[in-house]
């Protein structure tokens, strides 16, 4: 008797909607937030007595960022912008076939700059 085929894997969930978020607060408050909710910090700067960080989080986690002493501001839908950029990714393989190589962006004066 033949084995029954394994059930197909569940379809992957749709990618989350990731938002760009600015968080402002004291150093201590932000450290507490990061301890409770670790996430990569893409940009850090100090503004007077506060620290401002930029993070990217799935939309359903934004609520979790609320924390005493910090202000959370959603900047933009990063996933949506990313989808626009996906249109700027090359199709096929532009270097296949004839051993093509990229063209560098630097100018190359003979003998170097005068």
């Amino acid at each position, binding site marked *: 008797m033949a084995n029954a085929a394994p059930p197909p894997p569940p379809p992957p969930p749709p990618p989350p909607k990731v938002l760009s978020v600015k968080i402002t607060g004291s150093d201590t408050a932000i450290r507490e937030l990061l301890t409770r909710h*670790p996430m990569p*910090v893409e940009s*850090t700067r100090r503004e007077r007595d506060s620290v401002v960080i930029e993070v990217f989080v799935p939309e359903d986690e934004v609520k979790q960022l609320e924390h005493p002493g910090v202000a959370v501001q959603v900047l933009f839908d990063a996933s949506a912008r990313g989808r626009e950029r996906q249109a*700027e990714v090359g199709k096929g393989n532009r*270097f296949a076939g004839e051993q093509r190589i*990229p063209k*560098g962006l630097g100018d*190359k004066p003979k003998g170097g700059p005068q």
Partner: protein
Amino acid sequence: MTYLNVDEVETATVNLAAAYPSLCQLVTLPFTTSEARTSHALRLGPGVAGSKDAVMIICGVHAREWGSCEIALNLATDLLEAFAGNLGLTYGGKSFTAAQIQSLLNTVHVVLFPLVNPDGRHYSQNVDSMWRKNRNPAYSGGNPSCVGVDINRNYDFLFDFTTAYAPGSGVVVSSNPCDYQIYHGPSAFSEAETQNVKWLLDSFPRTRWFIDVHSYSQDMLYNWGDDEDQTTNAAMNFMNPAFDGQRGISGDAYREYIHADDLAVVQSLSGRFVTDLQAVRGKAYISKSSYDLYPTSGASDDYVYARHRADPSKAKVYGFTIEWGTEFQPAWAEMQNIIKDVSAGLIGFCLAAPCANGLSAVGLDTPTINFQNVPEGVTTTRAAVFSVQSCAAVDLNVTSGPTKLTGPGSFGLPLGGASFPAADSALERDARIWVSYTATNAAASATGTMTVTCPQTGQTFVIPITANTIPQPTVASCLVLDQSGSMDDPSGILNKKRIDVLHDAAPSFVSLLPDNDGIGVVSFDQDAYLRMGIMTAGSLSSGLGRALAGAAITNHVTNPMGTTSIGDGVEVGHNAIAAASGYDSTALIVFTDGEENTYKFISDVQSLINNRVFAVGLGTVNEVNPVALNHLVNNTGGYLLLTDNLGQSDVFKLQKYFVQILASATNADVVVDPDGFLAPVGEIKIPFDITESDYTADVVLLSPAPWAFAFQLETPTGTRIDHNALGGVAGVKFNQSANLIFYRLAFPVVAAAVPAQAGRWYIVLKVSAGAYKEYVTSQRGSDQAKAGVPYSAVVHARSSVNLDAHVLQSSYVPGAVLKLHAVLTEMDLPVEKRASVRVELRRADGTTSWIPLTEQDPGVFEGSVVTSAAGVYTAHFRAKGSTLRGYPFSREQLRTGLVWTQGDNPPPTRGKDDCCQDWATFLRCLLSDESLRQLLARNHLDARAIEKCFAQVCKQSSKVG
């Protein structure tokens, strides 16, 4: 162009390596990703892997930071194209010269890993643009939402963050497999991607600088990332468990230790990146430590720098992280600007890296020093070669040895260690530490060792030394002597025909031959005759070969009807040497007094000339054909000497030529050769210098009446050596013949129980009243004889101090420039700034002048003179200097230059048998026709016999007086 997809990154990487095979090595990473992708890296720069320190740049770690791969490939493309084309490179307002690009890749290798995380990039570019991790499902438990590991949290640096960091530190890492962004994996290096980076680091152990390219925030980050930096408490570091639970909080007691020098290095390089980047279009990136308020764990930059602390066998690698741009995926137009920004910053970084901490690397290129086949008695040198890449001063000190462990002989260190001053560039330089070996026992081997340390790097190099000794090389020489009719002409010396002068001179060559060398004799006129095949000379006093050669010269007499066929003589001499075996080298010494006029000519036997050939021409440029003789000697290692017209004062000239040629043929050097006359006026002392590099010497007195002299030597300590009382004296032999007497010394000489070698020796000469009277009587009371008994004292040394002299001519007509060229070496090393060379030039018009030569290169001395009158220019090279140990030495060599009006266009060297030779050639051509040969054969006529007969007739008809 737009962003590259994953396939394009890989293909472009592979194609670049194929396009620049000599400059670009394709490296296949061994660990395939969870989606079965294989990654590649590139090593840029000439030379084999591991031959230079390396800057490693990795890109494409975080999936959504697309532009990093493009930065890597742009950098590779631009560097390769500019380097290969010797071009400069400009990005906006920042330019690099072609010389800088050359310097960059000649100084360091650049190892580029363009796409560490291809699975993640593919997912980000096609599904979830904000994806950061890899796509490893292994820890997801089947939950598609829990796929992936943050690669830049998966390195082995404080991986156990819950133990290492303070509670509440805010360390940016997660142990939750379902964390969307920063799950660090189940263990350090659990991921193929981080394993590949580790493998790359281990495969390029000379990686000194590591840059992980990310986005975003316009920062250039350096170590550390776990806490703020401090330079004072080395114990407060990531390895010390006493500080577990304290890391990661800014402003508290714990800070991560970094040596102050290292901090200066990373700040300097980070600053250079920022400066050069800003020059492109004004973007102001910030240079700061990776710990930017909030700590990280398991990041690449800290891992690479931590390696050498955790494992001292690993090299120190400075870690950096670039965070380019202000968003992960800028519009492509802006991304191109960022690529230019970062490329300029990276090139500036690579240019500055080798000099940032002064010292780069010291490597030993020669793991052993081998002295192979050193002749017995010879001292020679070999070098331990180090490659040094350093902007700071570097010392290589010999801290032990060279010490002999087994076998005979001795090792020395003639020049000590090596050191380099500070430099502007870290271009690789070679440093050599010279070791000498003095071979003493043939067929023996020796071993030794030397230890060299570099205080700047703390490296110690233990270098084994091996050596073996062979017997002194032997030389087979053949004298090819002219016996044409003109040898009976007057020589210019009173009562001496040319054949007499030859009889006086040539035996000197035989008398002074080393015992194991071979000698043969050939005579020639219009034919050549083997008088004696090559035979070993044998002992000074009773060697059979020596005796037979002397007899052959004595029996060499003029053929009054003989013409001159130098080609025949060369051919027979060549065949005699070819028939001999067991000699290490050969020399043909051709003596002639006239122009060749009979077949075979020199040009006919040119193909046979594969020995060193020395030629002696007795006569003027008009009598001897110097062009043909030059063809004979050129490029053989020999040379031509021409006597010009001999006069009464030239009694020793030809003899000295033979003696010097003997020295050249047997690889000896002439120390001194003064001439004089000695009357019974007490003793005279002629000084000569022997060095520690001389291992044998012949002290020769040439004289038509050697019996008239009391001939002694005086050692540097004042001990007299007399050939009449050699008992108890070691290392001294004495011999005499009709025209010379000589001592043969093997150093060290032991006289009166005192060893003697380096220092000033003296030839002590004295002529008694009785001997003087006898000599004057033998010369029939001539006025010249009354001036005293003539002599020439010559000292030859076999030595490690050698003079090689040449006269190089721009042409052979008056007005030609004679370039006087001399090379002085000691133990095969140039005698640099320790000697001077002058040339005593006797011009064709008889005037003499001294020409000082200039040291153009180490040990290479040159000067020049313009000829005027036609004739022979005799250049007597005289070098004086001091050896490496400070002992004075002198060396002399004689060479001749020749100019005459037809020098560049001499008449053809054909005799009066030209017509006959032409007919012989015609006949040969005719008989080469097969149908004619068959016709003759049918009529029972032998074509070969006809040809042979005609040639014989030609020979006979060419005889001239």
